[in-house]
C-alpha cells in the first residue's frame, strides 16, 4: 500500500514536470537595501542559506553546496517541502539561478533568478524573478491551481523573503 502511494506520487510528480498550462507567467520583485552588495551577496549567494533570511523556510539541505547541480530540500515552516536544483551561480555578476524539481508550490516548470546589483551610495538592489506555468496543466484549472493562484504564491515567496532580508541585513 505504502509502495503504491509512493509510486503514484512519483508518477504525478513526473507528469507535472513534463506537462504545463498554456501561458508562461512571470513575477519580478525587488528591494533596495542600505548595504554594500558584497555583504548582501554573502546571504543571497548561498544556495543553502535561505533559512538565514527567508521567514517561511525552516530548513535547507543542499546536496552539493554552491556547485551547479546541487539540490536543496527546503522544509517550509507551514509544512511541506520544495526541492530545487542550482543551475547557475556567478559570484562576479552576483547572479544565482535555480529550478524547482518538485514541491508544494502551485506551479510547474518553475525557474528563478536572484541577483544583487550595486547602486549609488553603497546601496544594493536585490531582484528576484521567476518564470513558471500554473499548477494545473490543462484547460479549465481549479481555482487553487490557476494562473492567479500561481502568481500569488510566487509573489508571496519573493515579497516576504525580500522584506525580511532587509531586516536581516540591517541587523
Amino acid at each position, binding site marked *: 500500500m505504502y509502495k503504491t502511494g509512493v509510486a503514484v506520487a512519483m508518477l504525478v510528480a513526473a507528469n507535472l514536470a513534463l*506537462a504545463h498550462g*498554456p501561458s*508562461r507567467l512571470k513575477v519580478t520583485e525587488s528591494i533596495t537595501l542600505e548595504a554594500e552588495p558584497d555583504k548582501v551577496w554573502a546571504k543571497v549567494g548561498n544556495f543553502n542559506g535561505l533559512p538565514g533570511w527567508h521567514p517561511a523556510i525552516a530548513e535547507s539541505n543542499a546536496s552539493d553546496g554552491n556547485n551547479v547541480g546541487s539540490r536543496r530540500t527546503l522544509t517550509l515552516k507551514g509544512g511541506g517541502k520544495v526541492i530545487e536544483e542550482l*543551475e547557475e551561480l556567478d559570484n562576479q555578476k552576483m547572479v544565482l539561478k535555480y529550478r524547482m524539481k518538485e514541491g508544494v508550490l502551485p506551479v510547474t516548470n518553475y*525557474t528563478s533568478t536572484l541577483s544583487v546589483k550595486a547602486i549609488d551610495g553603497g546601496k544594493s538592489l536585490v531582484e528576484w*524573478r521567476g*518564470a513558471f506555468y500554473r499548477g494545473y496543466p490543462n*484547460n479549465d484549472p481549479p481555482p487553487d491551481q490557476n494562473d492567479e493562484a500561481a502568481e500569488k504564491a510566487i509573489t508571496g515567496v519573493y515579497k516576504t523573503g525580500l522584506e525580511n532580508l532587509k531586516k536581516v541585513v540591517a541587523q
Partner: protein
Amino acid sequence: MTDLGQLRGTPDIRGQSNATLAMLRTLDTFSPPPGNSPGRQDSRPRACRRRLTGCLLMLAALCLGTVACAAPFAYITNQGSNDVSVIDLAQERVVATIPVGKGPAGVAVHAASQRAYVSNPDSKDISVIATSRNEAIATIAAGDGPLGIAVATNGREVYLADWFNNALLVIDTTALKTVSRIRVGTAPAGVAVNPVSHDIYVANRDDNTVSVIDSNMRKVVRVIEVGDRPFSISVGRDGRRLYVVNVRSNDVSILDAGTHRLIGKVGVGNTPYCAALSMDDRQLLVTNQHADTLSVIDTDSFKVLHTVAAGGYPEGIAVHGARAYVVNWMDDNVSVIDMASYRTLATIATGKNSRGFGSFIGSP
C-alpha cells in the same frame, strides 16, 4: 517569394519608404550571394523603372536575392498584454500595437498575401492580421490549445499545432475555417513548412519526435526520433535540412529533409527554445532561455562558433538581412543583434511577456 511586384502593390506609402530604407541599410552590410539567380531578375526591370530610378533600381535588384524588401516589419506576440507589437525594422521602433485574442504566443507572417496569423492559446483561436492595415480582420476558433503556427508557401493554408488534442489543424485562409485535422504526437508545439518540398513538420514535445506531413495528402508520412522535449523547428531556405531545438536535452537535432535521417546533434545552452538561420543558411542562431544567451552554430561543421549575450529569457528569433531579432520574454523587449559582431545594437520595448514564437518577420 517576395519581389518588387509586391513592393509595387503595397498600397500604403509607409511600406514603400521603409522598404527603401531597409534596402539602403542592407547595402551597408551585404553583398549579393554568388548563387543569385540571374534568371529571376530578368523580368523585373521594366516594372521597376516605372517606380524606382537609377541607383535605387540597382539596390532593388541586389535586394531581390537577399532579403524580403517588402516585409521589413516584425510581428511580436505579447502573451501578457494580449496584443501584437508591430516593429518597423528600418526605424527599429514599434509603429502599431494590435489587440488580438488571449495569451498570443505563436505567429506566422506571410509577406506575399500581406497577412500575419497569431495563435491565442487562452482564447483557443487564431487572429488573422492584415499587415497592410495592421488590424486583426478575423478570429478563427482553433482547437483547445493552439500554439505553433506556420503558413503554406503559397499562403493558402495555415498549419496549427493543437497542444491539448495532439493534432495539426489545417486552416483554409480564404474560407477562414479548419478544413482538416491530422493526428500527430503528444503535445505538438512548433510547426514549420519546407519551402521546397512543402512538407510540414511538427515537434511533438512529449513524444521526443517530429512528425513529417505530406501537405498534399495531408498525412503523416514519417515520425523521426529527436532529442528530449523538442519544441521548435527551423527549416533551411534551401529546404535541405531541418533543425529541431530540444528544450530538455539542451541541444539541436539536425535532420536531412530528403532522407529524414538524423545527421547531427549540437549541444547549446540551458533550455534552448527557438532557432533561426542566417540568410545564407550557413549559421543557425539558437535562443537559450535560461542562460539569457544565443548559441551561433556553423551549419557546415555543426560546431558552436559563439555564445553571445541576449536579454532575459530569450524566446523567438528571426533573421532579416544582417541582423537578428531576439524576443526577450522576461524583459518585454526585442534585441537587435548585428550578425557580424554579435553585438546588441538596440533594444525595442514591446508589450508584456513577448514571445514571438514563429516566423515573425516572414520568409523572403
